[in-house]
């Protein structure tokens, strides 16, 4: 069997740490070569006087609520919390354009369960720059939004009855699935009882974001019957939210994701769809940005006019004084 198939079968627990590391480093090797082996440590040394304050506050608010039930992250002085903070702040210096976005805390938290801070940093870099495109976590999350539109197309193609049903009862699937993609299924599928989350991460790190679509469709397919049986928005929404949380049958999920859903859209087809939606989203935000600027300019003119008037009144007043 190929390595891909082996990983789909689940990385044995004792090798997970080592294999995750290797998969991550294989994606970012060129960046490490360019930045040097001590890059992460250097970034950490820059932390005390770097202008990342904008994100510092938000990060500190999220630290204690990333994995509150895990002992490693339970107390504010704990190693896990300190590492989480360092990695997220270092990333803001590394990539000031992206900075911190809620969701990254979960990705780093997951990485820290298996790796040290240094590796966790490179995992975040790999996820944001190599696995995903760098606009995935940008200021409008255009990459993530484009993927949700691609997802809708794939659902319409592969699970057309479900897709029509959701449309009919006015459910926008991305209100549920966006999180699944952005946090790579963290808090969406079971972690403790079955290894569902870890198995998804195994496949993600090995094969890249296409598996996120596969798993999403597999979860929907597993629940297709129940979804179609329900005819009101609320019960379907409820079901969608809760069904992923009880996906304990990981072998069943893997089988649906990689076998039953065949033929799955090709990587290239997904890529060209992504590019198409990305362009239209970017245009939308550009238009919006221009509108905003025009509005701000008008506001400024109005206030300037008001000031001028005030000025002339004061001037007249001074004159009469």
């Amino acid at each position: 069997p190929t390595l891909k198939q082996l990983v789909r079968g689940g990385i044995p627990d004792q090798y997970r740490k080592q294999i995750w590391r290797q998969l991550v480093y294989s994606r970012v090797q060129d960046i490490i070569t360019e930045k040097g082996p001590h890059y992460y440590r250097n970034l950490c040394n820059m932390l005390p006087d770097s202008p990342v304050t904008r994100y510092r506050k938000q990060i500190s608010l999220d630290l204690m609520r990333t994995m509150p039930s895990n002992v490693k992250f339970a107390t504010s002085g704990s190693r896990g919390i300190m590492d989480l903070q360092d990695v997220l702040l270092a990333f803001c210096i590394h990539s000031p354009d992206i900075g911190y976005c809620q969701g990254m805390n979960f990705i780093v938290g997951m990485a820290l369960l298996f790796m040290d801070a240094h590796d966790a940093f490179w995992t975040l870099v790999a996820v944001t720059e190599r696995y995903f495109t760098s606009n995935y976590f940008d200021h409008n999350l255009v990459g993530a939004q484009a993927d949700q539109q691609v997802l809708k197309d794939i659902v319409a193609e592969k699970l057309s009855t479900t897709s029509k049903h959701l449309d009919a009862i006015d459910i926008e699937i991305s209100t549920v699935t966006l999180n699944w993609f952005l946090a790579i299924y963290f808090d969406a599928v079971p972690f403790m009882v079955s290894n569902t989350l870890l198995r998804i991460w195994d496949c993600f790190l090995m094969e890249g974001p296409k598996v996120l679509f596969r798993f999403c469709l597999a979860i929907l397919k597993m629940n297709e019957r129940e979804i179609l049986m329900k005819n009101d928005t609320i019960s379907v929404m409820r079901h969608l939210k809760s069904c992923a949380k009880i996906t304990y049958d990981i072998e069943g999920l893997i089988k649906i994701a990689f076998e039953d859903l065949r033929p799955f859209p090709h990587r290239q087809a997904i890529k060209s769809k992504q590019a198409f939606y990305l362009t239209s989203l970017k245009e939308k935000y550009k238009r919006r940005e221009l509108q905003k600027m025009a509005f701000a300019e008008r506001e400024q003119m109005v206030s300037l006019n008001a000031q001028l008037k005030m000025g002339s009144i004061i001037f007249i007043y001074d004159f009469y004084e």
Partner: protein
Amino acid sequence: MSGKRKPDLKVIIMGDYAVGKTSLVCRYIEDKFIKHEPTIGAAFFLKQWGPYNVAVWDTAGDERYTGLSHFYCRNAGAAILAYDMSNPQTFESLWARFMPLLNSSTEKCLKIVVGTKMDLIPPEERDITLEEGRKLAHELNEGLDISKLACEPYFETSSKDGSHVSEVFECIFQYCLPLSGDQRSKFGLSTSTVDLYEKEPKRATAKKGCC
């Protein structure tokens, strides 16, 4: 579940990150206070109000998720705009960030401003006064007839000790989906309408110093 296809009312909660949006909903729906993970995207809750189904959408605070909020704002009957009473910046955000969103999508949407974490700030240290809060709340509802609203569109709450939390939701529900006194008692809801804020808010709960 009734045979209805859509919820009778959709309420959305917006506000800066970590102001306690999820805690507010959870205090109301589950009557529990727990620290929550940051909400990414949005979370969905359901509440029964007499014969009606109410969907409560809890949105992400991170600014980047703002672009997605049109999904959640669509057809919302009411919006809770939450700010952290111990952090005045979060009050400013209600104007700067969230008003534009609501303006474009839902003119008839009732807007309720809610201060959170009242337990964290002694009355004499607060930056946003009750009057400022109410003023903003009224401005936000300009063009909407809120004379039937049984309370001020402004609340100060603590999800930790539960003060004024259910009042927020019941005030909204009663306005959007009015229930008669008979109906209220039939469904086991308190029969008095909420008017705590008609009088000056009681400050008895905000003890100073240690107990």
